[in-house]
């Protein structure tokens, strides 16, 4: 495997892993919205 290919692989896979982890963490730490929440009320 060439150095260029290795660098691109590590860079891309590393970035994707970090961003996936970040957004997943954001979802987990976001408190659920207060109920009731019906959009019919807003029509």
């Amino acid at each position, binding site marked *: 495997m060439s150095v260029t290919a*290795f660098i691109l692989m590590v860079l891309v896979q590393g970035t*994707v892993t970090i*961003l996936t982890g970040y957004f997943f963490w954001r*979802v987990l730490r976001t408190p659920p919205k207060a109920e009731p929440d019906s959009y019919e009320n807003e029509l």
Partner: protein
Amino acid sequence: MAGNAVGLGNFLRFPVQAIQNGGGAFIIPYLISFVLLGMPLLWIEWSMGRFGGTKRNHSTPFILDSMTHRPFWKYFGVFGIFTNIAVAAYYCYIESWTMSYVYHSVIQTFSGMDQNQVAAFFGNYVDIYSSTSGIPFEAVFFYILCLLLNTWILSKGLSGGVEKTAKIGMPLLILFGIFLAVRGITLGDSSAPAGCTDCDASLGLNFLWEPQYSALTDPKVWLAAAGQIFFTLSLGMGTIQCYASYVKRKDDIALNAMSAGWMNEFVEVVLGASIVIPIAVGYLGLDWVKNNAGFAMAFQTMPFLFGQWGAFMGTLSSVAWFGLLFFAGITSSLAMGTPWMGFMEDEFKWSRNKSAWSFGLITLVMGLPTVIFFENGVFDEYDYWAGTVSLVVFALAETIIFSWIYGIDKGWEELHYGADIRVPGFFKPVIKYVTPLLLLFVFTGALFTPKNNDWKTALQGNWELDPSSIVGKITHKGIKWNRSWFSDGFESEASGTVLKVQNSTDTKWTEIQIGKPGIENEEAVVLKTFRLKNVQEVLVKAGDVVLEGQILAHGDFINPRFYLDGARILLSLLFIGLAVLVYSATVRRTKLSN
């Protein structure tokens, strides 16, 4: 939504697209497509869906209607139902392979097979006239079983239950995927069969990740990259809009869209890229993989890998892998049923049961040709038109509607309503200008790709279409010989020497091989292999020199063009039928409102 997005496309379609489009040549357009097309379209589709839901519309024709109030766009929304049914038709076939491979793993079919036998097993499996297990028409049997299961779950409204189970199944799939990815990356040439010089997993990784900047100017690669992004994220299909139309008005969509999208990319780019390609190259060699790239690759290689781990561990791993793949597949195929069901329930007040079983029936009618004529190219034809081109066309329409007709300012506001994150402002001009322009570039480029992708010559006035361009495909430019549907003489599609003329043992077919004979110690090079059915008389023998267009045999032949046109006619009929339904729904709405 991650359960819907993560599916067979991540593990099976991505490696194929990467290989067929030049490996490192594909990865850069793919990544750019994710940022400039995938992310914006995720936000656009979630916003459109939730907006449509507030107007009590759960299918794309009427979601688009509520945003534009123009009939033209409503009929464009037919794509949002059409694509789901057409993709489900062949997607369920792949899903049925995973189901069947679980069965074969349990009964130890692969035990003791070498790599070539495992690869050949798949060929026998998809040849519907042969049976690998004693079940007649095995491939059809498993396809119908799989479709029945999907339809039954949809009719019972159990998709919620499936989603809950997916919360356990998906992490398991990811964990097992990580384990296999580590194996793929570290396999090297340790499993190379004797005599195989290019059986080295690192060659596979190198092929995938070595950047080739020249591909950035190839619209065909961009179309494939964009198509893969859409397929894997279920974009341009109408599925996301359908799901999002049931999201509560104040619920976040901006963060959820990102979380689902990035999770999908992790499974595809980190895991999907590190499993099938390196393992297949490690066992079968880079040349084999380049020549045999297809959805089937994982089925042709993974059972052999598991077989190396002993009877118990091998069976367990094989069941786990194909079982989890089946699970990932069914969460996606169930999602493909929802736009049709939502449409029929909304517009024609059909019950869940009726709409689910009608979905199953239409999918069966559309899907059986992909099963029966799999080897004649019907499956690939569906994947090209419904699983690639349609997605790009519909996505282009969506961006125009969202940014230019509904208005980017209103759209941006809709996206941020109840959002848990603020989308970077950079994406606002991207959504308005870059995404539609890039889609337009990809689509028109692919529509009129010049011969050999030589744009310089084309722009100088000598614009000859490439057979791989969309127009080239429509006109069958790649088919030079045997252009009629039926013929009584089979024309050679290559010039060279007849290397072999052989009848199958059951005399069902005759194989004629054309190539360059080996000189002294060199091996013969096979240029074309024709497997002909219904042969009455073979006109050539081994050693004869033949020219392109020369008749090789007489008989009653059905040429590939018949199957390709048949697939296109079926897809067109489906689209027209759905458009008629949208028209009747409109008439019905007008009557009710009066």
